[in-house]
């Protein structure tokens, strides 16, 4: 299966969804996304960190210093209340959008029409 590059604007919501499972550091988020998409998504690492910073600025996520299993200091990202609200809203929007696109694309052409 080809690896899909992430559609513009959807990375943020994917990251938020990831963080809905709990606080994670940057690399954890990457691996989680890769595993969840069964490596079907091609996410550039730099873009992920840019998204994190963008959302930190907007107040969707919040960073705290923490310690990893291997006793390394790492920046842990956590969903804020605002981030949860944003995620909910974006999820609904995305679902409706995807449904609509799917409906349109799946529609069969009427008989006799040239495609």
């Amino acid at each position: 299966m080809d690896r899909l590059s992430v559609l513009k604007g959807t990375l943020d919501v994917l990251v938020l969804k990831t963080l809905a499972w709990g606080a994670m550091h940057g690399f954890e988020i990457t691996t989680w996304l890769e595993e969840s998409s069964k490596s079907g998504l091609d996410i550039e690492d730099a873009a992920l960190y840019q998204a994190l910073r963008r959302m930190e600025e907007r107040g969707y996520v919040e960073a705290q210093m923490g310690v990893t299993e291997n006793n390394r200091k790492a920046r842990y990202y956590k969903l804020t209340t605002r981030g949860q609200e944003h995620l909910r809203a974006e999820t609904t929007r995305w679902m409706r959008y995807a449904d609509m696109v799917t409906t349109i694309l799946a529609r069969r052409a009427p008989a006799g029409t040239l495609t």
Partner: protein
Amino acid sequence: MNEPSPNSHSRVRPGIRRLLGLDVPNKNSLASELENELQMHLELRAEQLRKVGMSEEAAMHQARARYGPIDQATHEIRNYAFKREHHMRRQMTIDSFSQDIRFAFRTLARSKAWTAVAVITLALGIGANTAVFSVVNDLILEPLKYPDADRIVFISRHSKNIETVPTLEQVHAWRDAKSFERIEGFISGRQTLQLNDADPSTAHVARVSSNFARFAGAKVLTGRFLLPDDELASAPPVALVSEHVWRTKLGASTDILGKPLKIDGKQFAIVGVLMDGVRIPAYLQDAVDIWTTLPAEGFLGGPAIGRLAKGVSVEQGTLELQNILHSLDQVKNEVNGSVFTIELHSPGSKGTSRDSVFLLAGAVCLLLLIACANVAHLLLARGAQRERELAIRAALGAGRARIVRQLVTESLILSGAGCVAGLFFGQIALRAIVAVRPSDMEVLSQVQVNGRVLLVTVAISIATGLCFGLIAAFSGRTGRNPEVLRSSVGSTPNRSRNRFRSLLVVTENALSVVLLIGAIMLIRTVINLHQFNPGFDANGVYVQRVTLPESRYKSEGARELYAEQLLQGARAIGGVESATLATSAPGQTGAQIGHWVTEGETPDPNKQENMEFTVVNTVRPDYFSVMRMPLRFGRTFGASADVDHERIVSVSLAMKLWGDSNVVGKRFRMQSQVTSTGAVVWNTVVGVTPNSASASLMDRGMTPMVYFPMGRVPEDRVSLFVRMKSGTAPVAELRRLFLSIDASISPPDVVSCTELLLRTVASQRFLMALLTLFAVLAVVLSAIGLYGVITYMVSQSTREIGVRLALGAARRDVVRLVMQRGVTLSFVGLGFGLIAAIWGARLLQHMLFGVTTSDPGSYAIGATLLLLIAIGACAAPTLRAIRIDPMLAMRSE
């Protein structure tokens, strides 16, 4: 996935961290955090790749490739960190300020009584200041509000202490003076105004030159100002109405131009509306209602006003005007004029009202000082109570600057509230001042709280806020003392702070005594004035004054008829015992200035020291019997043909001219009293009256007086004196009488003679009322201050008192311990206050009557009052002290 264990940075909320002065993450830490994150990502990615079999080097390479351009990423990180930090710092500043403010509000709200006392104290001080300085500003600093006000001078003529106004003729001659850009003169007075067909009313009419509007910066709202052509004798009479009259009496109608109005029965055409707020330096400083052209000659209604040319000194201007006046006098061969000197002074720098207003300003400054001292007390007392709180905060790491800022914020909020409340109180106070204004300060009715005063007030309140905030912050130890934390009682008494508080109490007491003694002197003055025998029986006498319009009462016949009708009509009113006519009424007397010559004395034209200010009244022969003022010697005016040269003098004038009181038959004259042929005209004294306070109660009747006979024909000014059998004045009947004789003259007010006499001392009463108010406020404030200090002292030494009581001290000793301190402080304050009062009382010298500035009674009363109040203020804390339960006090540790 494991839970992060947040470090200290995130455990404590940023607001609290800031409050306690802990570290807040800085820019470097954010940038390095993000760089670490990048590094960690690359390492973890490489490790992941190694696990699937890549070589160490290839894995690292691959990790970097998957990340994207590293240099660019680092750059982005740094930018981001910088931006965030900048934003955070700004947010932090805003946060900490709003936090300071919220915290201050919470703290202030926690002790509501304390806050209320502080705010009210400040409000009283600031409010009284706002009100009084609005008056000072209006009356003294910018009384006229003309353009180039710094070059405006008043021009008056002086001889000895007598000030007179120049004549129009002199103003015309002065207009050539090079030292002045322009000199203006005007005539003003109360005249009868008739608009439309409405009832006549009295209006303040100002007669000015066509140049006046430009000179005074006055704006015409509708129509035009007076033109040079209007000033020609042949021109039709025109007038402008004031904005006030236009709005209230003409309904702000736009088509009033050309409409007629009548002044004293003479018709004028309205040519315009002049904006309000234009003043003329008249002695009766009413707002002007009607503006019209100057007559050809006459005395001005006040000093002339000039605008000095740029760079010309007052001395140069005076000299030039003096020289012009001299040459004018030589041409006219007037002896009288030459004895006058010209005096130029800035507007508002003269007059009795100025003295009173300055006195008030001084008094109100003392009041503000006391209020400030009181607030300082309050903040200090509170500072002591809060020492523990501050110590805890300091121990938790709050910096001194942070605590100082918090205290200053609190004080600023306090003074801000005081300022707002003070402005509110100031408005009320200003209205009160306006309500009790004396009649010679009519101009006060227009005083508003003005912008400049507002600014000064705000500045004062901010300065007091800062000052007290800093006093509170730096007095004592601002919580840098670990001792405080250990002691559960709070703080131990602080010697330097106590000394400062004592100093404040002493100052407050001293200032209060000064105000108190001043107020007592004025109260005694007013009591003396009320009890003073004016030399005649004023009870039951009512006075009405009218001015007969020149246009219709030019002929002697018309005036005689008017006078006769008035007298007959008045005598016919029920309850009227007797009635008489005179030219002047008490307080509104005419005067003659000149040199008296007695028969047998060689007149000396160069003798100028004998310039006399003599009060003159022209009276009917029965004036003395109606006023119940029996003559000491001689008789009243007779019916002989030579009655015109008969005079009745007061004892004071007789003593002055002849050194004797029985001077019936002696002859005298004004030096200038010469007939057209050059023959001297002598006047014969036919009677001598006792001294009477006809001009003003303040002069105690000592001003020399001369009475002229009023024949059948009165002058244009007539005062009707009516003595009632009992009860009050028949106001309605008198009003009808005046209207029935001449409906075009507005009926004058009916005023009791007693009231007229009291009006002559209205300034004293005004000053007394306000100074008494200030003194009461001052005493109350300083009593609160003393109470605060003693209460604090008692609360600080509860344990000490408890121990003493437990060891067998009598309650009496406790009373002595507490009282001693309060009374000692008051005594010290009293001592300084008395010295200051002796010095300050000199300012009151001209306002006092029957009381000297060194009157021991006033000082004794003031001192006793203050001590009693001090003892009263100490009573409550003393009671609290003797009720201390020794067991409780000692266990309270």
